[in-house]
């Protein structure tokens, strides 16, 4: 069976023919050759046109290598390919493809560089080009950084166009007419008095060269892009047939769960598992790093037995109090970075104010708990999991199985949310540790919510100190110092790399804010690594947007200026001005009116402005309405852009209101959604979104909707109550209905 056949049979099929087909997954070997990973193993009667288009007798399969985490990646990738290939995305099959460097993400590394996305200068362009090279040679087959659209926009359309023209060339040869006299339509090559479905042309493809460098269609000719898409997965997700990683069932599969020390590396002092081992359905209790795994015939039986293990864990960890102190001390310590240092903030004239802000650790907590299925044999290991970085997973697993990464096959499954969580792979390594102890048997590890919640890789805690001056009714000077652990250092440390140089994420969303002030300084202060931290939706901008836009609002209030007018005066970047003007117009802004707050943040190359309107009631503050305007360069699917921008904003608001992870020296104190609270429907304001596509580089919207949301809310609460919310969760200082 060739590659296309395997994909066809094993992929999660989407489309009319796929109802009830359930899940299936492609099998691929991870290989070093960054050529077309689809060509190896093609059976007679199958063809791979570019790494993104597979053909077999049943038709077309589009390869969408960026994982769908809920952000709509599968759908947008399919539409980009389909637009040039002339197929209906609802009628073809989709597959995530093998882990391969050919699917490297050329944009994601740029996010780690101190390049303001609005900067089109030489150094910035050079850095972005270097990111493409880094991505390629580092084999960064990664989903993240809101880069899917930016990275795929040209590449997938070009792949679709190349496949289309190659099919036409094949037909032209057979018909003896010029390729230019053929056209394509809905999966067929069409000529004056006939047509052929693409699949019929497969036998002819062997004799034609792949047509390269095909000019892309003008947007005015687009059929799908720019129009509201019907998401390829939305029907299956509405009727319950969509299959996630945790729904995978393989013959002879063992159900596993783990209990491990919340302090990684703390080890196990003592463990008594005899009661657990005797429970119904339990096959074994096995040791793994920092704890134990239960193997059973059913998830609940595994969970129940895991709870029955008497387990004393070792080690000592930090407390939240000690961590806050370390962060505050770091503000006065060495600088990690000062990418922005203009004028002289210390000597600036005017009335001086100062304020300190802080935000807690947060968990990604996607609703689907982490899970992974691994089958080990001495010859080869197969992994099924929802990961944003399949090549890294292959390497991690190979280290555990003692194999070469080439012997590890990673099948990427759809994720029940991520928010950055599935860049991590601890649970895949645990599943591998279990699998090597039961060779030949597939082991599906599902973390209990409690295990998942207490073993996070968190959004860092952060503390900021704002200082500034106002003069003559204007903001004159702004000095923001941010202290936090470095996400890059923590992540690199987990894969055994040192992180050198300043971490731009520490100050992201603040240092590159396009505000022109005579005196401005943004400094990052790195706190020593203790708690493992990770990329959490919008990363550094998730806290810096709050710090900068809240403190700027304090300065503007001190100056007696209008929050929108003064920001417009300061903004030095045209697209940013446009979104602020747009949101003011949407909300008919007429000052704070005792109920409204505004915030503007530029992150991931997308300027986003938001206005929140609140109301004080006897039960507390009610959020009535949120207006969002963003500039993404070009809107490919207005329906999904709206979902991503509003989802990001609400994710930000929900966590700002009531979420925190605290530490008591033994690990995290929150264990489930009762103690780690989350936004609920009754708290959700009405939302109006306007996504602008005024040209310029195309950008993704999964993250940039988040950073302005919390400060817009805090600034609205100030307008309504006179109270400044300077720390999260807000609910600690203010009653919300």
């Amino acid at each position, binding site marked *: 069976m060739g590659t296309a056949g395997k994909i066809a049979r094993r992929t999660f099929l989407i489309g009319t023919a796929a*109802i009830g087909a359930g899940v299936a997954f492609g099998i691929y070997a991870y290989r070093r050759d960054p050529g077309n990973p689809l060509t190896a193993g093609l059976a007679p009667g199958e063809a791979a046109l570019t790494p993104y288009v597979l053909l077999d007798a049943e038709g077309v399969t589009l390869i969408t290598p960026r994982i*769908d*985490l*809920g*952000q*709509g990646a599968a759908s947008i990738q399919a539409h980009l390919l389909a637009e040039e290939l002339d197929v209906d995305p609802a009628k073809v099959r989709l597959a995530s493809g093998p882990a391969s460097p050919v699917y490297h993400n050329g944009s994601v590394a740029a996010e780690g560089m101190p390049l303001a996305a609005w900067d089109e200068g030489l150094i910035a362009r050079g850095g972005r080009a270097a990111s493409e090279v880094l991505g390629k040679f580092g084999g960064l087959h990664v989903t993240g950084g809101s880069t899917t659209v930016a990275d795929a926009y040209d590449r997938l359309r070009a792949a679709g166009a190349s496949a289309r023209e190659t099919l036409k060339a094949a037909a032209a040869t057979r018909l003896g007419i010029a390729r230019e006299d053929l056209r394509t339509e809905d999966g067929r090559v069409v000529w004056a008095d006939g047509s052929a479905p693409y699949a019929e042309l497969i036998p002819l493809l062997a004799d034609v060269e792949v047509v390269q460098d095909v000019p892309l269609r003008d947007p005015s000719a687009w059929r799908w892009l720019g129009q509201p898409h*019907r*998401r390829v*997965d*939305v*029907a*299956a*997700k*509405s*009727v*319950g*047939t*969509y299959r*996630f990683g*945790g*729904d995978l*069932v393989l013959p002879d599969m063992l*159900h596993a769960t783990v209990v491990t020390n919340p302090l990684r590396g703390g080890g196990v002092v003592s463990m008594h598992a005899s009661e657990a081992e005797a429970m*119904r359905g339990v096959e074994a209790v096995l040791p793994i790093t920092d704890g134990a795994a239960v193997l059973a*015939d*059913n*998830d*609940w*039986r595994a969970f129940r037995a895991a709870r029955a293990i008497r387990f004393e864990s070792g080690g000592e960890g930090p407390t939240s109090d000690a961590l806050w102190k370390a962060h505050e001390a770091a503000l006065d310590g060495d600088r990690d970075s000062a990418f922005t240092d203009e004028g002289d903030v210390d000597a600036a004239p005017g009335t001086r104010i100062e304020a300190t802000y802080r935000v807690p650790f947060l968990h990604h*907590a*996607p*609703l*689907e*708990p982490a899970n992974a299925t691994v089958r080990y044999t001495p010859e080869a290991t197969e992994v099924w999991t929802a990961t944003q970085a399949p090549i890294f997973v292959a390497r991690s697993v190979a280290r555990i199985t003692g194999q070469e990464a080439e012997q590890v096959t990673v099948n990427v499954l759809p*994720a*029940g*949310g*991520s*928010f950055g969580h599935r860049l991590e792979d601890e649970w895949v390594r645990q599943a591998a540790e279990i699998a090597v102890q039961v060779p030949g048997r597939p082991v599906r590890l*599902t973390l209990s*919510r409690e295990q998942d919640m207490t073993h996070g890789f968190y959004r860092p805690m952060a503390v900021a100190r704002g200082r500034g001056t106002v003069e003559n009714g204007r903001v004159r000077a702004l000095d923001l110092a941010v202290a936090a652990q470095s996400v890059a250092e923590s992540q690199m440390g987990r894969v055994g790399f040192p992180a050198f140089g300043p971490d731009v994420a520490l100050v992201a969303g603040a240092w590159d804010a396009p505000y022109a002030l005579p005196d401005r300084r943004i400094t990052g202060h790195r706190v020593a690594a203790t708690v493992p931290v990770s990329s959490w939706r919008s990363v550094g901008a998730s806290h810096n947007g709050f710090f900068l836009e809240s403190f700027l609002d304090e300065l503007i209030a001190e100056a007696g200026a209008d929050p929108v007018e003064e920001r417009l005066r300061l903004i030095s970047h045209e697209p940013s001005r446009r979104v602020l003007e747009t949101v003011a117009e949407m909300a008919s802004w007429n000052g704070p009116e005792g109920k409204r707050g505004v915030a503007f943040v530029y992150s991931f190359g997308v300027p986003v402005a938001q206005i929140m309107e609140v109301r004080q009631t006897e039960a507390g503050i009610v959020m009535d309405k949120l207006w969002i305007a963003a500039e993404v360069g070009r809107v490919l699917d207005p*329906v*999904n852009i709206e*979902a991503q921008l*509003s*989802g990001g904003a*609400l*994710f930000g608001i*929900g966590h700002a209101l009531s979420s925190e992870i605290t530490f008591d020296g033994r690990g995290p104190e929150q264990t*489930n*959604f*009762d103690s780690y609270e*989350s*936004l*609920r*429907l*009754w708290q*959700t304001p*009405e*939302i109006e979104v306007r996504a602008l596509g005024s040209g310029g580089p195309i950008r993704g919207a999964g993250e940039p909707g988040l950073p302005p949301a919390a400060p817009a809310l805090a600034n609205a609460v100030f307008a309504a109550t006179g109270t400044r919310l300077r720390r999260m969760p807000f609910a600690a200082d203010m009653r919300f209905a």
Partner: protein
Amino acid sequence: MRITVNGTDHEVDVEEDMPLLWLLRDELGIHGSKYGCGIGACGACTVHLDGLAVRACQVWSGDAAGAEVTTIEGLGTEAAPHPVQQAWIDLQVAQCGYCQPGQVMQAAALLAEVPDPTDRQIEDAMGGNLCRCATYPRIRAAIRRAAGSEGA
């Protein structure tokens, strides 16, 4: 024990206190209902028990025996969706989709009881269903649409 799921009778041999969720998922292979928290705090596991929306992670299999269990798969199909599912499809509610089987089941139970709910009734009924992707604006709109109040 005997249990009826989506109109089909099953004879199962499980512990009385095994929550219905895992009887469905791991014993019967019906995977639409999801595990999110196991403590009744997220609603991802919501099913109907004799028409009532319940958290399948909180109902013992022993107590579900003899009742009619309906899961998301029994509510409708892609070819013949329930009006709530149709509204969910039309408004493209789902992002990751993991919470949506529970949201749909909760909304369907609400509309069965209150065909044209007020905003307050929608908020009360849906308050236990967590969506980490925060699809709430569209959930609200889809319920209104399914209720016909937006001329669906």
